[in-house]
């Protein structure tokens, strides 16, 4: 059985931290896991760092920090509503534009002389702005994800709950 030195343990801990595993208990969980894999599979004379890199690579899809983010997400999500970025904007725009659209529809079907397609300007103009304009913004956000990322990054989730009411959990 391969014996891991203290320097190698420090190396693994530093590498995990540099890779985005900021939570200490999670880092120590992963450290122990990696150490067992190395102890049971690494042969004497084999390259430690190369073996470590290939072992830890099987832990994630794209980046090591996914484990930290998944943990943070699961701990944050209790009794909260999690929305993708597009769904969040859809909900937001529905809340903003919905009343105006409902007002327009009511104006169209009401028995007043202005009913039908003859909708007064003060009714259709705000409806247009508050429904079409947000849809255009959503389209721009969808087509240019990199340029409009600072507020709600592309792969982030919007968590709605209580204290804080809205939280953006990012996936860089």
């Amino acid at each position, binding site marked *: 059985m391969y014996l891991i030195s203290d320097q190698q343990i420090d190396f693994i801990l530093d590498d995990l931290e540099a890779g985005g595993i900021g*939570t200490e208990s999670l880092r120590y*969980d*992963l450290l*122990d896991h990696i150490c067992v894999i190395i102890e049971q599979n690494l042969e004497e004379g084999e390259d430690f760092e190369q073996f470590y890199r290939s072992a830890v690579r099987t*832990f994630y899809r794209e980046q090591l920090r996914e*484990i930290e983010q*998944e943990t943070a997400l*699961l701990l944050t999500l209790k009794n909260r509503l999690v929305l993708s970025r597009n769904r969040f904007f859809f909900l937001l725009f529905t809340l903003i534009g919905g009343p105006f659209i409902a007002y327009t529809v009511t104006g169209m079907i009401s028995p007043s002389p202005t009913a039908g397609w003859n909708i007064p300007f003060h009714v259709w103009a705000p409806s247009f702005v508050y429904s079409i304009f947000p849809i255009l913004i959503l389209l721009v956000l969808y087509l240019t994800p990199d340029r409009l990322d600072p507020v709600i990054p592309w792969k982030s989730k919007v968590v709605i709950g209580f204290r804080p009411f809205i939280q953006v959990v990012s996936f860089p």
Partner: protein
Amino acid sequence: MYSTELLKGTLKTIILKLLADNKKMYGYEITQKVKELTMDRIQITEGALYPTLHALEADGFVTTETEFIGKRIRKYYSLSPTGKTKAREKVKELASFIETMISLLDIKQKLA
């Protein structure tokens, strides 16, 4: 090997049941036990295991105790009293779900 999507909803149940049967386990031990019991057909990834264990701990379903092995720390996970109840509930729920799926997909008839 089953798809990640298929396993995602059952991971908590798998972990809770293993801890119910084995008193206390550490992360690596859990992954190996699952591999052994399923003859390698289910492999829990580290990226799914530890976030779930931490979430179960935060929910109060599992408790932990640590052991120092030289410079590193091994964390053993075991069920809390509420975790034991939860494990029974989850296994019962999954068993019922599997029965429903068998009936829904008409699997019994095809197997016969």
